[in-house]
């Protein structure tokens, strides 16, 4: 398939960065919506060993977790889009 051959030539670094970038974008949106609805201080009693962080800290951790999740999704998708090496 022609299209497929050309896509294969995208450098790996570019593939990873584009996945991370889109994930970053979506994580930012998710973080904004999530923390607009939920005050991290209210989560404290629900989660055992909740870190005694400030709200800013909780937002940052929340954002990084969202980013981890969205990035993992994108990275797995692009990984599975490429066939394994035929030996």
């Amino acid at each position, binding site marked *: 398939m022609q299209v497929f051959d050309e896509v294969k030539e995208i*450098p790996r670094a570019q593939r990873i960065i584009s996945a991370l*970038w889109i994930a970053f974008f979506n994580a930012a949106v998710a973080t*904004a919506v999530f923390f607009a609805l939920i005050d991290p201080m209210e989560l404290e009693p629900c989660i055992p060993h909740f870190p005694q962080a400030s*709200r*800013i*800290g909780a937002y*940052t951790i929340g954002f990084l977790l969202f980013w981890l999740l969205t990035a993992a999704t994108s990275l797995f998708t692009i990984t599975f889009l490429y066939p394994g090496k035929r030996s």
Partner: protein
Amino acid sequence: MDQKVMDRRRDARDREVEKALYARREKIYPREVHGLFAYLRITAVVVLLGIFYGLPWLDWNGQQSVLLDMPNRKFHLFGLTLWPQDFLYLAFLLIIAAFSLFFFTALAGRLWCGYACPQTVWTEVFLWMEQWVEGDRNKRMKLDREPMSWHKFRIKATKQFLWLTFSAFTGFTFVSYFSPQDELFQRLMSLQLGPWESFWMFFYGLATYGNAGYLREQVCKYMCPYARFQSAMFDKDTLIISYDAKRGEPRGPRKRSANPRELGLGDCIDCTMCVQVCPTGIDIRDGLQYECIGCAACIDICDEVMEKMGYPKGLIRYTTQNAIEGKQTHLIRPRMIVYGLLLLGMMVALGYAVATRNPIGLDVLRDRNSLFREVGAGLIENVYTLKVMNMDDRPHEYRVTAEGLPELQVLTDRPTFTVRSGEVVEVPVRLRVPEDALGSRRADVTFILQSVDAPELQTSEESRFLGPMP
């Protein structure tokens, strides 16, 4: 032309674009431009960055004018305080921003990209610094080709120093939108920044440095979602930057005194200035391209060249596809009307919602454990929990009443209660009604919450009163 031939040509063009998207990048050295549109962009840069860097220093009634106080979960916008419950306004604002983008894109093409996008604006400033330290286009290219020397190192180090200082200041400004600027500044000076503040300052500063210093046009070409879908908003009446091929071709060099018609030439002298000034490194003479961010640098430089040659200006100009094809350009068209009306409607709705915003919130929850209780003397009791939100920026004292049933009694622990600014307080309330007054198994009741100290603050909420089968 044969449909198959056309299809094949289009496929070939698509492949070219695709190849270009994934090709190794060559550094672009944009030449400095002067002219009307360069002037407009400088104005836009100064105004927009002025707002960005200035706003945190501006006070409004003794309070930072724009402070998105995330630690305390409230946004201050010029005297208006918004709480998480007001999230809807933010969503509205974003929708309005999106529709404005659609509207102006359909009207005038990539105005946003050329003049207002942070990527353009910061890249412009970083380019100024680069030009100031390293010199003009030829000098910069020569410097980069030279092997490392003390001279080159000094120049590069000066540029890096300027870039890094500016980025650090940008990072500080960004964080001061979220953490009060004066306290933040004091903590910065005494090196007592919190870990999260330091992290975001570093992060935003680094992003500015990388995007404006190095990635530049690659952000527009590879990373920007808007650049990819803006063509959907284009039509034949959209303002685009275009080279007038009819007038310019065949291009070629000639003496200033020569008459191009006698030489069989068009007005384009093929000086390649338009290519040299382009921040995305394209040749506008090849037609409309997705890389073109509509900065109009090529218009400015070409006009300058045309003037020197004594030809009329506008060989490259803002125009529309219809105008190029010799047809009429329609400013008012269905697309513009639809976008315009949607935009206007949404702005009116937001304005109305903000103007009539009631800084008092009430939620009524029925007690889930029992439907009703008979409390003697023929009275039926229902228990509720009221969630009272004070979204004003000062505390208020409230009283709850209820109506909807005859001889309705409202019992609260205390006759009035105080809710501090931004707080949500749960108030248990019992309603009692004589069984004969109830009449049916269920009835609607309305809770009314009113501030004692400011009677205009009032809201109501409906709920249900349940009783036994009559």
